[in-house]
């Protein structure tokens, strides 16, 4: 936002800010998922028939695609978390921008690699 007197108060997104926002959003998504996950798995208490019926639904194509997304979100949160540990405890602060791009690259590669088995299961190719 530019004010009349010429001062520019806009926030340009820096690498560190993007990393921080993505960490918050992925964390929020994972906490939401964890709540649902504990609830879904509590169907184990209903015995094999009830549980396998729920799992059949989750083995459907829609959920396989969603699980690829979950894999990507997990990877980002875990790898950026390691980046944060390196910054806090291992003197990584000086290299926080480079570390973000390393995280970005590894997340991208592992998400694609992890998608392969999901797509195989999807196609029933085993």
């Amino acid at each position: 936002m530019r004010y009349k007197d010429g001062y520019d108060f806009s926030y340009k997104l820096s690498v560190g800010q993007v990393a921080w926002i993505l960490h918050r959003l992925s964390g929020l998504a994972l906490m939401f998922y964890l709540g649902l996950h504990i609830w879904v798995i509590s169907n184990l208490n209903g015995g094999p028939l009830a549980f396998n019926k729920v799992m059949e639904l989750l083995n459907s194509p829609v959920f396989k695609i969603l699980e690829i997304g979950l894999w990507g979100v997990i990877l980002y949160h875990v790898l950026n978390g390691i980046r944060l540990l390196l910054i806090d405890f291992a003197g990584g602060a000086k290299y926080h921008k480079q570390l973000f791009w390393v995280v970005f690259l590894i997340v991208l590669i592992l998400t694609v690699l992890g998608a392969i088995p999901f797509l195989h299961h999807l196609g029933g190719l085993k």
Partner: protein
Amino acid sequence: MRKTFGTSGNTGAMGWFFHRLTSIYLAVVLLIHFAVMHFIGDGTITYAKIADRLASPGWKVLDILFLYTGLYHGLYGLWNLLEDYIHNSFWRAFIYFLIAFGGFALVILGTITIVNFKKIGG
């Protein structure tokens, strides 16, 4: 003379430290968990497969710790995030209570599921 003038004396450092500590366990166990569920084998999740794992005390302990560290880490993170945006003291207390209550319910539900698990059927 009071040294911690005007503060509760609780800096929150321990909460922060446990958030970091649990993250290390979670990073390792979450990746193992995801690989075992989706990458090793045919990718289907069945009652029988889970029963086999929960029959081993090692998996059971790993899973219970996974449940508790995951909930601590996630709920601490959620509160840490929300308290940045909620400034009204009533709503802060309300949201804090909601997170604590929801967390307690999930701890109970998850514990019952893992600890009480007894295989039904062959």
